[in-house]
Every structure is written in structure tokens, then in C-alpha cells.
């Protein structure tokens, strides 16, 4: 498989970078993260409408950008670089889930709003115990005549505090079901969780006999597995972009900060740290690019590619973000300098969708070890 970006991909990258560097600078990020919502809805509208970032993989006939995993890779890499506060990952997860699970009527009903950025959708699949595997979903849906009722707690729901369309995963007799709940549904309590990472909001949903509409027919698990894999592929791209940016910031600082009459980057202690970070970031690129190219081409095993990318990129991003602080010295851990924002994003995206250890365990199982 040839991992190479086309001219169109590079053009997409330039367009997004230009937009975000103008619209999502550090001040904008700090302003957005201080709000209750956690993002600027006007900016998100523009990202959706001018760049197609809300419906990247939504087909054009549903108003989306009609793109695939490689374009998503590029987009999330760029968004990760600047820590943009936006419900992009929630939206991507939801769009992928709907595409994989829903029938055409539901797709037509749900996707255009998502793609336009006028409707915010998200997927909730983690229960109160905090496990990310779709093999261990403990919340059950109850059939009530033609409709369904949901009870229970769903945690760590991306932007679940403000989404108007919540897609809840629950057990049904024939496997897993995907259920649509409106944001204002009766019996639904939701609260934003105070986050370690201020640049992406997670929420907890509590359902008490909430009426829900089931999306799609039959066991939704295979479709949800693929949607989850594609979402993790986007997340590792985001991690890669964030780490690459940290490396740039650290390198620039090492060139311009003088101590003992020399740029600190001329000391091997700093220089070799930077070299090791470069290595980590290059391997992140390999991991993240590989996952999305496998998703796009169908060559190779997507599940393995995603597990290995998530395991590696999570630890590498944290390493790079932490070392960026170290290279900056005292300034690096001040509130006013942005290095800590990357560290917190790195740690939260490491935990999100399962720990590196769990992904390694799953690779071990697949290798038959």
C-alpha cells in the first residue's frame, strides 16, 4: 500500500490550516474553552459550511463533503494542531454510525442537518463502569409496543451536553441497538463533566424511561464497530497533528531561547530530546496514516491498524506534550503558556476510546499470543 497524499489532499490541508490559523488561534481557543458549551457555535457553523468539517464523510446527496478516511485524516490532523474547540469528533462519530447502521430514510432525516452544522449529533456507548468496548455494553433498551425505552447512565459522551441528537447504544435481544434520543427528551438528564482537558467537552447522560427511536435493523454491532474504528482513526490523526505542533513549538523555542550564551537547542541534552520526539512523531504519522489508508483502500486489517495506532499515538502524544513542557522550563508549566493545553488534550485523548494497554491486549489476542 502506497501511503502518499494527492495534490487535492495537500490543497485541503492548506485550506484548513489557513482557516484555522485565522479563526482558531490561542486566544480563540481560550475564549471557547471558558464557555459552558465549550465551543463557539458560530465558528462551528463556518467550519461546517465553508470547510465541510461537520459532514466530512457524509455523501454529497445528503449535503456532505462526500469525502473518505484520507480526507478525514487530513482534517483531524489539522484540527489537532491548533486544539480547535469544536464538536468535530462527535459529529464524525455520529455520521459514521448513521452511515453504517441507519436505513436510507433515517440517513436522509439525520445527515443533512449534521453536515450543515445546524444539528449536532453524538454517539453514547460507554456505561457508568467506563469501558469502551462494544463487547461490554451493560445498558439495556426496553421494548414498549412500537417504541423503546431507555434507562441507565452513559458516560464520556462527546459534546453530549449540547447535542440535539443523541445516539445511544444499548443492548437489545438480537445484539446492540442504536437509539435516537432528542436532546430535550423527557426523562433525560445531562451534565457536562468538568474535564481534565478544557478543549473538548464530555458529558454524562442519565435516562429514566426515556422514549427512544431505534435506528437501523438487526444487530448494530458490526456497523458500530466500524464507526468506532473510523472515529479512532480520526482521533489518532488529531493526536498526530497535536504532537507535530508540539514538536514545532519545542524546536522553535530551542532555537530562540538562549542560556549560557547559546541557543538551548545547541545543547545535546535538548537537541537529542528533540530528535527523539521527531522519531516519535514520525512513527505516529506512520501509525495514523496507515490506519486511514487501510480504511480507505480496504488493504490490510483495519481493526489491527486502529489498535496499533491508538496504542502508539496515545503514548507518543503524551511524551511529546510532556517533553515540550520540559524543554520550555518554568514557562512551560505556567497557565498563560499553551503547553499545558496540549498536555491535557494528549492525556484525555489517550484515555478516550480505551487505554493503550487495552488496545495492546486486543492486538495480542489477534496475534494469538
Amino acid at each position, binding site marked *: 500500500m502506497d501511503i502518499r497524499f494527492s495534490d487535492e489532499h495537500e490543497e485541503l490541508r492548506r485550506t484548513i490550516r489557513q482557516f484555522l490559523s485565522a479563526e482558531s488561534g490561542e486566544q480563540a481557543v481560550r475564549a471557547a474553552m471558558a464557555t459552558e458549551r465549550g465551543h463557539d457555535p458560530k465558528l462551528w457553523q463556518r467550519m461546517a459550511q465553508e470547510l465541510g468539517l461537520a459532514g466530512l464523510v457524509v455523501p454529497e446527496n445528503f449535503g456532505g463533503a462526500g469525502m473518505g478516511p484520507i480526507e478525514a485524516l487530513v482534517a483531524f490532523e489539522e484540527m489537532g494542531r491548533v486544539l480547535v474547540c469544536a464538536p468535530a469528533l462527535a459529529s464524525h462519530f455520529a455520521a459514521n454510525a448513521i452511515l453504517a447502521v441507519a436505513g436510507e430514510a433515517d440517513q436522509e432525516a439525520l445527515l443533512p442537518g449534521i453536515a450543515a452544522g445546524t444539528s449536532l449529533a453524538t454517539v453514547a456507548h*460507554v456505561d457508568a*463502569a*467506563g*469501558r*469502551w468496548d462494544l463487547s*461490554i455494553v451493560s445498558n439495556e433498551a426496553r421494548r414498549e409496543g412500537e417504541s423503546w425505552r431507555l434507562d441507565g447512565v452513559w*458516560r*464520556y459522551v462527546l459534546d453530549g451536553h449540547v447535542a440535539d441528537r443523541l445516539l445511544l447504544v444499548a443492548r437489545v435481544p438480537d445484539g446492540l441497538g442504536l437509539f435516537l434520543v432528542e436532546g430535550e427528551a423527557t426523562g433525560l438528564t445531562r451534565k457536562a*463533566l*468538568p*474535564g*481534565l*482537558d*478544557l478543549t473538548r467537552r*464530555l458529558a454524562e447522560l442519565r435516562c429514566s424511561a426515556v422514549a427512544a427511536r431505534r435506528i437501523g435493523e438487526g444487530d448494530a454491532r458490526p456497523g458500530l464497530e466500524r464507526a468506532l474504528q473510523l472515529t479512532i482513526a480520526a482521533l489518532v490523526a488529531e493526536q498526530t497533528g497535536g504532537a507535530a505542533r508540539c514538536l514545532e513549538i519545542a524546536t522553535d523555542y530551542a532555537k*530562540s*531561547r*538562549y*542560556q*549560557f*550564551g*547559546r*541557543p538551548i537547542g545547541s*545543547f545535546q*541534552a*535538548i537537541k537529542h530530546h528533540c530528535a527523539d520526539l521527531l522519531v516519535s512523531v514520525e512513527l505516529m504519522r506512520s501509525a495514523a496514516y496507515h490506519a486511514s489508508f487501510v480504511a480507505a483502500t480496504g488493504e490490510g486489517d483495519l481493526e489491527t491498524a486502529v489498535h496499533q495506532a491508538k496504542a502508539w499515538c496515545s503514548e507518543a502524544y503524551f511524551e511529546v506534550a*510532556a517533553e515540550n*513542557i*520540559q524543554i520550555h*522550563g*518554568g*514557562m*512551560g*508549566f*505556567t*497557565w*498563560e503558556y499553551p503547553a*499545558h493545553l496540549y*498536555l*491535557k488534550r494528549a*492525556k*484525555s485523548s489517550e*484515555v*478516550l476510546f480505551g*487505554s493503550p*494497554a*487495552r488496545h495492546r*491486549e486486543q492486538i495480542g489476542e489477534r496475534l494469538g499470543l
Partner: protein
Amino acid sequence: MSDSKRTIGEAELRDRVRALLAQAHPDAVDRVTFRRAQYDHGLAWVHFPEGYGGLGLSPGMQSIVDDEIALHARTIYWNLAINAIGIGMGAPTVMTYAAEHYKQQLLPRIFTGEDIWCQLFSEPSAGSDVAGLATRAVRDGDDWIVNGQKVWASIAHKSSWAMLLARTDPNKPKHDGLSYFLLDMKSPGVDVRPLYQITGDAEFNEVFLNDVRIPGDRILGKEGMGWRVAITTLMNERVALGGSSRPGHGLSEKLLNLWREEGPSGPRGADGRSAAEIAVLRDAVVRLHIESELLGITNQRTKSAMRAGNPGPEGSVAKLVQAELNKKITELGLELIGSDALVYETGYPLRRGEDFPARTRRENAKHDFLRARANSIEGGTSEVMRNILAERMLGLPGEPRVDKDVAWKDIPRG
């Protein structure tokens, strides 16, 4: 090592402590009264000369005093809690370099905690390279006028006095153009502002000095001798070793408790981890626990060596190990917590570092994880510590220097 005419042994020292306690007992009198009595008995810094809070003994013997007091009193005062910088660093500097009337005025009040002290050395442009600092002191008659900005000044907002390092001659090589001042923090032009960290807490301050006037007799040492005086201060920085030396009471203690109470196999264990995941975590916990235990033993060896008057490399090793180990321990702590690590219950209100709210074990683990990022920077970066270990302990040669024998003003600064 000693100015006293005859050596006081351990037994006699214990007798003197008991005599002090008979006269002023910490459970009976207030802190200032007790500590002033301790000072007058020469039991504040036993290695200081008589008449200055000491008895001219070896520094290692202070621990005998502390142990003996602890044995007989419920009220224990910790130097670190009362006036860490003043007692640990300010006092020895004053003792060595200040004029007699300043010694008499300042030393007892440092020990009682009536005067809190801070240190104003670091600057935004002078971190690891403190001697490259830019704060200027210009002579004005008998006084000095100081302008500049200092950072990483802990406790500055509560301090009466500061140890201030400033540049009095930019035309000399960097170490030669510095002078060391005692600064009254209530002087006009001193502006202390909190410096918020990754946690939202402000444990440190920035201090802006705008045309601050300092009387000429508050130079310690002489004009241009500031670096030598600063060395005395810095040499005393790591006397109070971090970390306990009792087995099971080191850095890893929190981690073990976290495992037992909230970890994968504890009562609040969640995330449905597999046995294999738990085994991997357990191995990681034990690995760090061992290192933590060995750090404790190393601290113990240092104390033994100091008591015997043979300080070895163990002390300098401890700072490096502790910084790196605590980062790893707090990272693993977060891993034990699992998915709930995504939540930061206390939020990030910007506040003074001493205004800690009560926190649960879990909340503490999250806070500690963030706070530990600074461990390998504060008090000397791990990179600087490795230089020190390699050059001073192993005798490896220094690097080629581009900032020696050059007027400070001509050193490249990017």
C-alpha cells in the same frame, strides 16, 4: 566544622534539649516564644556559632535535637512549614556574609517565623543560567536603585525580606558583575503578582522591581561578589531532603493506597479491566514502588553520611530520582483511575497555591499528576542535575563555554 572549644556529645546535646523543654515547652507556650527560646539555647542551627542560634557542632547533629523534641512534645514545628527559605537558605547566608547588627536583628526572627523570607534570583531570561540575569542595580549616593523582573519566587507575597541578586556591572563577565542585596519587601516599587500554573494554582510569584531603593549597607559580601554569596544560598537549597526514608512511606505510598482503595482490584475498581491488564499494571506499580523504596534508602544513606561528616553523591542523586520518579508515579496513578481520569472534578479556578480545598484521594491523584510536571524543572532542571552529577561527582569535563571572559552585555542572547 566547629567553633566551640570542646565537643558536645550526643548525650549532652539531648540534655540541653531537655533543659530547653523544661524552660519553654512547645505544648505550653506559643510558637514565637518557644522558637525564640530554642534559638537562645543554641538549638536552632546547632552548626552555627554560639550566640547565633547554634553551638558550633556538625550540621548532622541537628537531627538529634529534632528527634529529642519530637520525643517529648505533641506540638512539632517544621522549618519547611514555618519559613523554608528563610531558615534553610537565608539564615546561613546572613550568618556568613551579613554585618553583625543584621545577624542579631534577622536571625532570631527568621527562626521564629516572624519574618518570612523569599529568594529573588530567577528571571524570565535567566532560568538554568541564573548568573546571566539582567536585573540592574545602579548606585545612587549611598543607596542602590533596582529595576527588573524576577520569577518563580515562592512565598514572595507573604515575605518581609528577600535575597535579591542583581547586576551592578554589565561590563564585567557575567559572574563578576553581580551583587547580592537584602531587600525589604515593603519597599516602594516592589510589585508581587501571582504566577498561575498548569493546575490553576499560583505557588509562585512574579516580582516586578520599579526604581526600588535599597540602602548601601544591605549588600551582602561586597559589590561584585554576588555570585559567591549566591552559591552559599544555593548550596543550602537541597539540605532538606525530600522523601521519607521509612520503608513504605515514600513517594509510592499514594500509589499503593490508590491501588488498594480505588485501583483495578480495589473496592471502587471499575473499567472492567481484564486480569491481564491488571497484571501489567501491578508490575508497573511494583516497579515504581521499588524505586521509591530505594530513593528512601538513599536518603537514609545520605543522612548517615552527613551525620558521619562524609556527604557523598547520594544527596544530589535524590533530587534527580525524585523528580523523574514522581512524574512516573503520578502518571501511573492516573492510569489506575482509568476512564475517570477524563474528569477533573475540582476544575481550574485560578487561585493562590496555599488555598487548597479538601480533595478526595482521586482528585488528589489528578492534581498531583499535573503538579508533578514541574518536578523536573523547579529547583534545577533534570538536565542541569545531570550536568552537576556528571561534572562534580564523576569529574567529567565541562562543555566549551562561549560566555566566559566576555562582558555580560556582549553575551549572545538570541
